[in-house]
């Protein structure tokens, strides 16, 4: 399969703190991938490494087989919308389209103008005076006008109200559906992206917790309810992701590697959100215990 983005033991450090560590992942072409993790998990760092804003401190990241840091030519294939959709606030949307044309060799100004016209965005008003949703749409239109093969969006909907979120994601999906553009968009809320993504990368505490297609992840995890579990192996279970116990009963979220036949366990299917939360909760517990210097 064609890999658009590959990270191999990628790491980035700010001072003595690793913002991203030992990050290895692959993003196949044509996917709409969600990059999910709590605030400070390293999502922005990963995206900045992928778009060449940052230089890796360890490992390597490759986009279309090229190392993005300092690679101006490679930038042509990557569309990037940074967090809080920064744009020159005193520029009008029309001027930003012109600016994009001056800054890029491949630039579809008509596409940008058509999109912005359809969305009813005024061309002659400074973008600083537009609403957050409109500004996000302008940023997206500018990124799409580059006709990128990979579109990276950093928390694109975080500052939008629910209606604007839905509109933004709908218009995003509508525009990448035909072009085959690979999309990687980050959010600290899975619920924002669950409806649109088919691939998932979960990042927590500077490390990749989970990666794979949504279908595989849902199919590969189960919830088990049964008698109190002491940690012994269970047939068909590859790993216990999260366990909670009462005196007599255990509830486990497990990764499966085969059918679970033990009749002691009640097996339930799980939703994507359950899986993600289980992994995030696990990562959180580990870190905070280490930071406080107490045993887990």
């Amino acid at each position, binding site marked *: 399969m064609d890999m658009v983005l590959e990270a191999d033991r990628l790491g980035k450090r700010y001072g003595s703190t690793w913002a991203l560590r030992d990050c290895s992942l692959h993003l196949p072409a044509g996917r709409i991938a969600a990059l999910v993790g709590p605030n400070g998990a390293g999502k922005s760092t990963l995206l900045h490494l992928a778009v060449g*804003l*940052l230089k890796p401190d360890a490992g390597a990241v490759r986009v279309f087989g090229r190392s993005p840091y*300092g690679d101006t030519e490679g*930038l042509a294939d990557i569309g990037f919308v*940074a*967090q809080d959709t920064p744009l020159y606030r005193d520029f009008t949307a029309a001027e930003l389209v012109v600016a994009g044309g001056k*800054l890029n060799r491949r630039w579809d100004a008509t596409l940008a103008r058509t999109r912005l016209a359809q969305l009813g965005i005024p061309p002659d008003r400074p973008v600083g005076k537009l609403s957050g949703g409109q500004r996000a749409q302008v940023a997206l239109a500018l990124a799409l006008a580059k006709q990128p093969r990979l579109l990276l969006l950093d928390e694109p909907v975080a500052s939008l109200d629910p209606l604007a979120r839905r509109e933004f994601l709908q218009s995003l999906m509508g525009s990448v559906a035909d072009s085959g553009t690979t999309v990687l968009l980050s959010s600290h809320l899975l619920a924002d992206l669950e409806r649109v993504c088919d691939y998932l990368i979960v990042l927590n505490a500077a490390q990749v917790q989970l990666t794979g297609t949504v279908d595989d992840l849902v199919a590969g995890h189960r919830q088990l309810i049964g008698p109190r579990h002491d940690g012994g192996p269970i047939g068909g279970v590859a790993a216990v992701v999260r366990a909670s116990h009462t005196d007599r009963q255990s509830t486990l979220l497990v990764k499966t590697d085969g059918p679970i036949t033990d009749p002691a366990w009640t097996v339930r299917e799980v939703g994507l959100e359950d899986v993600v939360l289980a992994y995030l909760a696990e990562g959180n517990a580990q870190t905070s215990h280490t930071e406080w210097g107490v045993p887990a």
Partner: protein
Amino acid sequence: MIWLTWRQHRKQAFFTLLAFAALAALMVPIGLSMRSTFADLGLAECVRQLNEPNVAAAVREGCDAGFHRFSNRYSSLNLLAVLLITLPVLVGLFWGAPLVAREVEHGTHRFAWTQGVGRTRWALVKFGLVGAGAVVLAVGYGLGISWWVDPLTQTAQEGRLGLIVFDLQGVVPIGYTLFAVALGIFAGTVWKRMLPAMGITLAGFIGVRAAVEILARPHYQPARTQTFPIEGDGPPEISRGNWILTQGVRNPDGTMIAEDTRIQCPPGGKGPNGEACGAELGIEPGAYNWQLYQPADRFWLFQGIETGVFVALALLLLYVAIRRVRRIA
């Protein structure tokens, strides 16, 4: 890139030109009035005569009186001259410091640097255009002030090498302005917020300017010394326009008796108690006045050296700034 730079900074450019025009509107009438007074008092002729050897004492006294009248009339302008010194650093504060710092503060660098233009080119074009604009501004400023301040320096004993007037005219404003802009850009790449970057620029500019002015400039060329006797007829033989670094009175064996002063007595003059002139200071017979100075004709040499120092500093700062830009995310 050029279009973008112009679009981003055109408002700033407009206001800068407006301020420049307002300043010119204030300065030109004052300059014209100074020049007409200068001509009315016949000072141009005085300057010419005083530069010739063996000036008659009467001419010298008459001219000094004229210079005094002129100085008294326009002495308040020295304050204005001091204020004019601050103009280059203002360019650094409002053009240099925000160049990178504002982009990073607003996050727009993530937009600009992820388009199809590499950041090195972005930095080169931006720094280059803003630097060129600053040079044009500085040339206008240097020429204008040279014209404006000329009557003031001609009438002053110290001349063009004097501490404040030297900094205002000729080519040094170009060096100062470029340095201020480069320092602002550099500070913006290190502190990445506008206000800290502006503060650092201001402090750094004042520090470097003061250090160069006080520590380096007097030594651009070996200073010359001149001596003249304490007892003499009329004012001492000091060339006008020399920049006197230190002076004092020395005994015949060379020991310094009184620093930062000079003594002038009429021939055969006696103190109140009938002692020899200056005896109360411990002056022995044969003591003389001593001065360490930079001659007036080194003005352009010193201008060139000083400009070179600041342009070199500016280029160094810009080089480091470009390197730093590559590492900002």
